[in-house]
């Protein structure tokens, strides 16, 4: 598993796309804002935009949702090369809207768990990469 994190519109997907191309990896399945029902055929799987998935499931308890996401990703990661792109959202002003606060909290909890299990973590800042782990 390899996690890429960065703020919105920082060029995360472009970076990962180029990075995979440079390695000559062409057999890639991109999953946007969802988790697959079945394991995709491709040898490399990129999961991005999970914050949109979280936003649709705010009725689920913080720890439960974070754990569920983690389990599903872990299962994918044991079979395939897995790349997870996540959006930083915990470094601004506390949002006035309760649902946005909840979104931020769940994502924060989920990212913590994800960082713990992922052997590789890279931060993207406007197209530049930095190894965190």
């Amino acid at each position, binding site marked *: 598993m390899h996690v890429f994190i960065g703020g919105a519109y920082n060029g995360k997907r472009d970076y990962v796309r180029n990075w995979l191309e440079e390695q000559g990896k062409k057999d890639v399945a991109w999953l946007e804002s969802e988790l697959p029902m079945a394991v995709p055929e491709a040898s490399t799987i990129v999961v991005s935009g999970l914050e949109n998935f979280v936003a649709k499931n705010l009725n689920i308890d913080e720890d439960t949702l974070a754990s569920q996401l983690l389990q599903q990703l872990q299962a994918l990661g044991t079979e395939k090369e897995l790349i997870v792109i996540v959006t930083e959202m915990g470094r601004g002003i506390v*949002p006035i809207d309760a649902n946005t606060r909840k979104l*931020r909290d769940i994502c924060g909890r989920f990212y913590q768990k994800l960082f713990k299990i992922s052997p590789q973590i890279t931060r993207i800042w406007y197209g530049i990469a930095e190894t965190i782990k």
Partner: protein
Amino acid sequence: MVSNELVFITGGVRSGKSAYAEKCLINLVATSPKKRLVYVATGVPFDEEMKQRIIRHQNDRAGQRWTTIEQPTDFSKLLSKIKEGDAILWDCVTTWLTNEFYDGYETGVSCFQKEGCIERKFIEMQNTIYALRERNIPIVVVSNEVLDEPLSTSYEVKLYQKWLGRIHQWFVAEATTAIEMEYGQMHQWK
């Protein structure tokens, strides 16, 4: 040939980025102490507090080598105001983008509501930066980090965030040095 420094600095509110940027520009021209330091200001004095804020900033720089040029919009107009041998501190990109977004507001239609308007402003700004660098003018650019939080649900703000991200990516790609400030702690990415 483009040979001069373009330093891009971002950071959160009160992260110490403006003070750092001023020092940075002074260091860049340390070998030519006669250079005029030009502060390109973007703030529009829309209320009394803002007027006072601007005056305070001007006083802070008074008596030194600083000259202030007000350039809230129409970035290319800067080209005729900058003299050979000047060095520029542009503070900041976020305020400039806000000004350009709402340019034309009094006519009933803001720039962001017009097809291709922001794109044109962005290209005008890019071309101005290219032209200044060709004239060997060192430039320090300051901006704000506002993309590390959930995206706004408002179309307008989201569009602003999208443009700001695109502009920041361009600056980081073009810059000779790119720095993120975190509460006085500097992180040099490039």
